[in-house]
């Protein structure tokens, strides 16, 4: 049915069509649209985000509720949960990350192919949650990997996570492929001005944890 509409109907439409020259006339009943390539690509990306759940604590239970039938993550194109970083687009870190897990999380993030995004779900993943301000817990995963959307809550309700996902979809829709800093994964050069010395980071981060020195490019 759809195909038959796009076929030229020479008998009814385009009476001035001459043979030999390419037709530039677009008739009103032909299916066509105008857009930028960015928009088309971003539309595709934002509606087929494959999440990789990195669940370490109670937030993972809420993530499971979000993925289950009542809240149904599949509505947002997240039908397929990728439990392998190689096939994932979005890393959803749900739960606190101890220092022992930090290299694992960093490795998983590095294993994900571009384009990739990260959602930090819950207060622990976003900031260490205050009550875990101790010797063992990373004070926010933005110390290890770049984060696109922070979802607050302890744990966040499924609606909260869905809202975060929709925010990420909006963010993906607004990406421009011409932006040179978009997929920049460079580690900061210690000689450059972008580099912040660890002692300075300590000064900035004490005693309120991280989040003041987060960068899009990692540590």
């Amino acid at each position: 049915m759809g195909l038959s509409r796009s076929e030229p109907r020479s008998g009814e439409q385009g009476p001035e069509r001459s043979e030999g020259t390419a037709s530039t006339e677009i008739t009103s009943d032909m299916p066509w649209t105008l857009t930028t390539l960015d928009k088309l690509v971003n539309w595709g990306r934002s509606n087929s985000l494959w999440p990789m759940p990195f669940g370490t604590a109670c937030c993972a239970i809420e993530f499971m509720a979000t993925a289950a039938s009542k809240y149904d993550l599949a509505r947002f194109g997240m039908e397929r949960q990728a439990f392998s970083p190689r096939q994932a687009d979005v890393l959803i870190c749900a739960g606190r990350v101890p220092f022992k897990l930090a290299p694992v999380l960093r490795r998983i993030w590095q294993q994900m192919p571009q384009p990739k995004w990260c959602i930090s779900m819950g207060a622990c993943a976003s900031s260490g949650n205050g009550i875990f301000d101790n010797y063992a817990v990373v004070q926010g995963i933005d110390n290890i990997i770049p984060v696109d959307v922070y979802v607050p809550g302890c744990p966040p309700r499924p609606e909260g996570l869905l809202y975060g996902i929709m925010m990420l979809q909006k963010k993906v829709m607004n990406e421009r492929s011409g932006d040179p800093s978009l997929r920049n994964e460079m580690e900061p050069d210690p000689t450059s001005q972008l580099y912040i010395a660890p002692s300075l980071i300590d000064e900035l981060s004490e005693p309120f944890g991280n989040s003041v020195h987060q960068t899009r490019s990692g540590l």
Partner: protein
Amino acid sequence: MVAGSAAGSNAPAPSTPKNVPLRGGEPNPSAAALKQQFSGGINRVDVMWGETTVIVDHARLHEIVHWLHDDPSQRYDYLSDVTAVEFRDLEQPLEVVWHLRSLPWRRFLRVKVLIEKGAALEVPSVWDIYKSADWLERECYDMFGITFNGHPDLRRLLMWESYKEGFPLRKDFPLRGRFSRSEQLRQALAANPEARYSKDELSIAEAFEDLPSDMRRRLGTGEKVGE
């Protein structure tokens, strides 16, 4: 009659005790037997909330636990926990605690050894009696720095093996650790997550000969699969 009970068919079925006093309840019969068997090795017997705590001599701990495990009148066949307690009070000694349970006799016994402040943090390992002591003692070593003499593989369990800041559950350990946040993070990120597991730990060593030859070759050369 309860299946598996060592007390025989005439023993009453166990029931939840009621109106248990805070102190001075009926002690576990094992305490009296221990006093008879190791008269010099038992320093004190406490009963609190109906649970018996036996404070034993440091040097005779292994012998006592061995007897509790083997003697047919005791048969403490389950070691449920090994841990330690440190108090803020500088006078009070550090305690190492073993939680023993006798499934046949339906008994619970808490065995403690006191380590005076300033003394070496060393106690004998009970790994040769209970295999479950393996990780429990490793955890206790990891958190308190207590050396269990005779443990075959006393490494850190919860913290990573190259952790340099000390023993987190000791009272002199600062809550946020000794190093700065960025230093902690740098050290943690420098760790190789795949290097922590030895072939022995994955118990693949036992099955090594049964593996296909190509897998044996790959494991033998230490090939990494996660890169």
